[in-house]
């Protein structure tokens, strides 16, 4: 059942905006949360042949609902293949066969470098974050990397508290080519590599974006306005919502 004027959340707008950038057949390396939402939405709409690889070793996973963890049983059950974690990171990721990697982060700097390790001093952190996980090698070896995080002066900082992942690595890939936020999208400048705001969501102004950025944000002369999520996109996205967390014992 569709709604005349769709209401949607910021997360939904982010997932839809990222999903639209995936061409059909793209091989994606995805983590949990927004990336998993975006990649599965793409698979459920315009990119049915996209291949989802989770670092838990599942290749070609086709979950009907979003997994709560990257190792949920649904991923193994629906995957074309399940391989070991050392193999996923050697033959598949570092082997350079993945088109698009998705990353989140706690902080990003003007060159797309990411922090997912600590807020504050490393030895005595204000907030201890989960850490690197697969991020450094995902950014280095996927052909391109999409970053998804909310845009605030606390997350978009001139200087990272800790550099976990290099935005433009000397790896096989192009590094971070797109940052999807709750205000719009940024892309690196071809010359300088500095992130530039190139797309804005409906009712978001360039000034809003500047206010939400901890550095002198560059905004493209002609920013595109992103189409709001369509009914079809919203329905597909909401149909992916995880089932309740109740456990079934057999």
């Amino acid at each position, binding site marked *: 059942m569709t709604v005349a004027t769709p209401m949607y959340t910021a997360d939904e707008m982010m997932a839809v905006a990222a999903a639209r950038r995936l061409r059909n057949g793209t091989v994606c390396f995805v983590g949990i949360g927004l990336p998993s939402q975006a990649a599965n939405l793409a698979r459920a709409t315009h990119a049915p042949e996209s291949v989802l690889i989770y670092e838990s070793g599942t290749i070609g996973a086709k979950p009907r609902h979003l997994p*709560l963890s990257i190792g949920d*049983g649904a991923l193994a059950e629906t995957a074309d293949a399940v391989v070991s974690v050392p193999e996923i990171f050697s033959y598949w990721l570092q082997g350079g066969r993945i088109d698009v990697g998705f990353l989140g982060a706690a902080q990003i700097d003007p060159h797309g470098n990411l922090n997912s390790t600590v807020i504050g001093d490393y030895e005595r952190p204000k907030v201890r974050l989960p850490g690197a996980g697969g991020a450094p090698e995902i950014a280095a070896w996927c052909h391109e990397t999409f970053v998804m995080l909310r845009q605030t002066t606390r997350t978009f900082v001139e200087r990272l508290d800790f550099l976990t992942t290099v935005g433009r690595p000397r790896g096989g890939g192009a590094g971070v080519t797109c940052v999807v936020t709750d205000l719009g999208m940024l892309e690196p400048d071809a010359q300088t590599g500095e992130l530039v705001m190139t797309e804005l969501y409906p009712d978001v102004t360039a000034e809003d974006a500047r206010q939400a950025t901890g550095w002198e944000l560059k905004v493209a002369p002609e920013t595109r306005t992103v189409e709001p999520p369509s009914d079809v996109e919203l329905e597909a996205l909401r149909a992916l919502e995880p089932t309740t967390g109740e456990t079934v014992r057999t």
Partner: protein
Amino acid sequence: MAEIVPLGEAVRELVHDGDVVALEGFTHLIPNAAGHELIRQGRRELTLVRMTPDVVYDQLIGMSCARKLVFSWGGNPGVGSLHRLRDAVEHDWPGPLELEEHSHAGMAAGYAAGASGFPFGIVRGYEGTDLAERTRVRWIECPFTGEQLAAVPAIRPDVGIVHAQQADEAGNVQLWGISGVQKEAVLASRRSIVTVEEIVPALEPRPTAVFLPGWTITAVALAPGGAHPSYAHGYYDRDNAFYLRWDEISRDRESFRAWMERHVLDREASPV
């Protein structure tokens, strides 16, 4: 040849204070029962190794079992922080916790090197990150191309502990579904304990199965439900509700203590 023994006995005889212990599991088949037995037996000064420390490591850290953590991603998957881990790192409670952190690729290479008897593994990573100074990485040059690569030291735990679906009477083990680095963790370790959902007359080969011969394992212990709140493919699903609940339980030191006393300390090892 693996001995089939009660879990309590396996932990008592094979895990000592100060040991380097890897309880591995990549969201699936996490050896929670074995971790609880370590807590009940009051092990201290452990170096805990795991790519993805989650609830059971949060519990071991909060119960003062660990002096050091070697890891690559420490969180409550799909939920958020591990509050006991954060409390230890941010406020030294219940004591200070030394960290050695890697990327997943680096740690996976370290386990594979350990299983292969190599002193190190190689990764094309770490370059340009602050991580390089915070982990045990060295740079080596390819003798053919001159390319610089990162060398990570082999991971060689004193004890490797994993959970599997099945063992047979001879102590051969089979696990299937997402297998993570469990094979490497067992083969890289000096001693090993495998807890299993059940002991069957014969292991029937299955798709995606990892087989560990009994002669590569020190002890096998029966621990039905031993992976809960994680899952055992073909036996029970992941208790997602518990992971969400753990965020509440573990946020506060008192409620954490109370929960541990009620659900772990006052409990017996799973009967055999």
